[in-house]
């Protein structure tokens, strides 16, 4: 059995959803780690959950990167440990410099909660290894600032390095304007770092792990982590 660490910032509100998906649905061990802690307690993988860390009254994620636990997360990531940032967790990864780029307000300037389709672009990350390239996932989004932005040269580098991991598409897996809910550059829904062990995405896989909730397509993302650890593809440990 592997062990996830779910970091709890003040204002996190998807921490229990990630906990529930990893523990109850996937049957793995999970620790909730308070942001003031300085120890990831031997976790095999870290999840930064969704929410509004510290209220997000400044830029989303801007305060959370100063939380004591983030030093530990950075160190874990630099040793190759798998880190998944979901929604606000993705925004925190951007602010912490673990992933490139920034988030703008959604194209329509409104918070949006709905199911969208994303296509798996690359499978050589710890969070997509159990999926197949081109696989279309139906996942919920729930954010006001998910309009991914980076300078053109950064986008070009992300593309060249195959760091775009998820892209918004229509139900058929085609990149279209209608399929892009928030105006993200290059329809980017999720990306990874150069070492490929840190992944951030705006959609919520933890909300799509059971049929009763309307989709179980998100399961493959957490299952990938379990599989990566089991097969020894990743060896870092907190």
């Amino acid at each position, binding site marked *: 059995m592997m062990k996830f660490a779910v970091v709890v910032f*003040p204002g996190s509100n998807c921490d229990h959803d990630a906990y*529930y998906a990893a523990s109850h649905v996937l049957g793995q061990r999970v620790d909730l780690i308070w942001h003031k802690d300085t120890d990831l307690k031997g976790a095999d993988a870290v999840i930064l959950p969704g*929410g509004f860390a*510290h*209220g997000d*009254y400044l830029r989303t994620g801007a305060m959370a990167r100063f939380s004591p636990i983030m030093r530990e997360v950075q160190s874990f990531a630099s040793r190759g440990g798998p880190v998944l940032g979901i929604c606000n967790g993705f925004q925190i990864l951007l602010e912490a410099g673990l992933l490139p780029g920034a988030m703008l307000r959604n194209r329509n300037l*409104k*918070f949006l909660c709905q199911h969208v389709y994303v296509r798996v672009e690359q499978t050589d990350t710890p969070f997509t290894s159990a999926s197949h390239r081109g696989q279309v996932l139906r996942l919920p989004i729930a954010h006001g600032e998910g309009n991914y932005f980076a300078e053109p040269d950064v986008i070009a580098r992300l593309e060249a390095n195959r760091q775009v991991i998820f892209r918004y598409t229509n139900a058929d897996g085609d990149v279209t304007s209608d399929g892009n809910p928030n105006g993200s550059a290059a329809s980017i829904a999720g990306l990874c770092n150069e070492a490929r062990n840190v992944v951030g995405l705006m959609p919520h896989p*933890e909300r799509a792990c059971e049929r*009763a909730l309307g989709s179980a397509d998100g399961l493959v993302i957490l299952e990938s982590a379990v599989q990566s650890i089991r097969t020894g593809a990743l060896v870092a440990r907190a």
Partner: protein
Amino acid sequence: MIDPKVLERHGLKPDEYDRIVAFMGREPNLTELGIFSVMWSEHCSYKSSRVHLKTLPTGGPQVLQGPGENAGAVDIGDGLAAVFKIESHNHPSFIEPYQGAATGVGGIIRDIFTMGARPIALLNSLRFGSLEVPATRRLLEGVVAGIAGYGNSIGIPTVGGEIAFEPSYAGNPLVNVFCLGISKATDIIKGVASGAGNAVYYVGAKTGRDGIHGATMASAEFDDKSAEKRPAVQVGDPFMEKLLLEACLEVMQTDALVGIQDMGAAGLTCSTTEMGSRGGAGVEIDVAKVPQRETGMTPYEIMLSESQERMLLVVKRGREAEVERIFDKWDLHASHIGEVTTDGMLRVKEHGKVVAEIPNRALTDEAPVYRRPMIEPDYLRNVRKLDLDALGPRDARLRDDTSVLLALLGSPAISSKRWVYSQYDHMVRTNTINLPGMGAGVVRIKDTDRALAMSVDGNGRYCYLDPRRGAMLAVAEAARNVACAGARPLAATNCLNFGNPERPAIMWQLAQAVEGIGEACRALDTPITGGNVSLYNETDGKAIYPTPVIGVVGLLEHADRVVSRRFQVAGDAVVLLGEGRGELGGSEYLKVAHGVVQGEPPLLDLKAERALQQLLVDLAGARLVRSAHDCSDGGLAVTLAECTFDTAGIGADLSIDDVSVAGTAEINRAAALFGESASRAVVSAAPDATAEILKRAKAADVPARMIGRTGGHELRIAVGGHVAVSVPISEAERIWSNTIEHHFAKRVA
């Protein structure tokens, strides 16, 4: 010192002041007068409505907590309680839509977690003027963004709600918010102060000058100077509330707590007084110890401030450090501001010097109660009359039944509310198993098999035409929506939105509506466990439609048997439960097609309604139906159309009975298609389940008949054997989906 002008500014009548002096045995000082004014305001004292509210049914074996606490609670099995209430924030939302609505959400959430329950779902019921008017769109945009801003941030899903648009709400929109939480049945915490010497703690945001006299404002009518009252609206901080929520729930896990209450309307005044009164004790505080955001605040201002996100706690003596430690963890500072006493007084000190001293009883039990004069309003004589043969010609664009159906589907009242609910996070906490727009909101309860369904409903137009029957229909519809999802209705909460009760015609509407709610709740076994009254909903002397909004909570024993409104597969049987009588009085059809708000709202046979609801729950529990949808606004044709939406285009071929209510075939067909007779629902089922459904309906004494099958990509409805409606699903769904967006797009164009 206290002259008539001061009294008027405090919303107190001269005879009320005499009563204060008599009770105190002296003239009150200004601080004391301020305290009386908020506690005796309509908002806090329910002085006009109390005699009527007392007639409501509030008990039953399922009720763990009835009215009088911060929220009601019902037993939902497995040792758990559902804690819920609805509350209004109408006046603040008109003055400042975003913050008014946001702080409304914050307030009701505090009421729920104050009871020891973790809030797990929100609903809202909104009323605005016509969507054609730019001011309405501004209000709608602000209110929706405010609800979203607060609920999304704090991480409680908004799982459903309802909105209507009528000109009567143009100057006085309604923002009613419902919240539901879960706690262990044995762990419900009350807002009491008891045990002399126990510590009184203040925790949360600092006190500022915002919202002073909010409760008094909510007890007065609007006029053109209302915009100047903006400083009386508070600003919400959902992050602070999230910290308070988590910290308070953690404190409640210890047994160091005696009681807790949020500081909502009338802030520190109301919480100290009510907690002392409930516990039969007194409370003594020193305002100098209250954390303050501004300098130079007077005791008067501190006692009356309605700054948000503040809680008052009574902690057992000797356990203070334990409680302070928990708040410290959440970076919240708990301030020890006073003690519980035995003398039944509210005593306010400033640096040790007494600045106000009032018996609790004078502020609560002795608050004035009015049996205000009532008279049936004159307008009713005119509007109740409806001669279907004398209706003017139909809007020329509505040349056939199909175009009428499309017009109804595109009317703001009936159209999809996706523009609204997509701004609310409705999935956080991963419990939502019936998404908004699919019928009642349904959330599963993790670690059990159960789920709770909830719905808020009200029809101001019906209540305008007949407050008593309109209110009964609101109870019936909310309970029916819950039953359609497969849940057994358990209990209800009400939010009574009316005009100025000092006018006898308004008072009559209120009394009639309360009678109607009582009768329906008794018949449907859904006791009222709490709620809220919002009066003085008038602008420049013009009242809103009388609008009681009812929230009903129901229980699904098996979460996996939840039923939504959508047809599931082609080839299923479509069965109509209940019977149409072609009632067009007060209907959306008359409003849209003839521009008329007239007639009597549909009849309601409560026995038939109860039988229908029990049948719906029975059919869902036996997994006999694959979808269920209630008939309400727009009648059977609209219901059938809605069953086909969000299905990826599963159509239906249907045949319904004709009715004869008028001299022309056109009106008779309209009555069959768009009449709003109550106690009806449409279910779909596998063809081989039909016989069993009809058998069970017969045993339950519910009229039932198969009216067609799902399939194809069109909606076809024949009336009396002749095809009346025929439209591709894609076209109908497009019109239904985009109405609100179109109104906003128009502004840009």
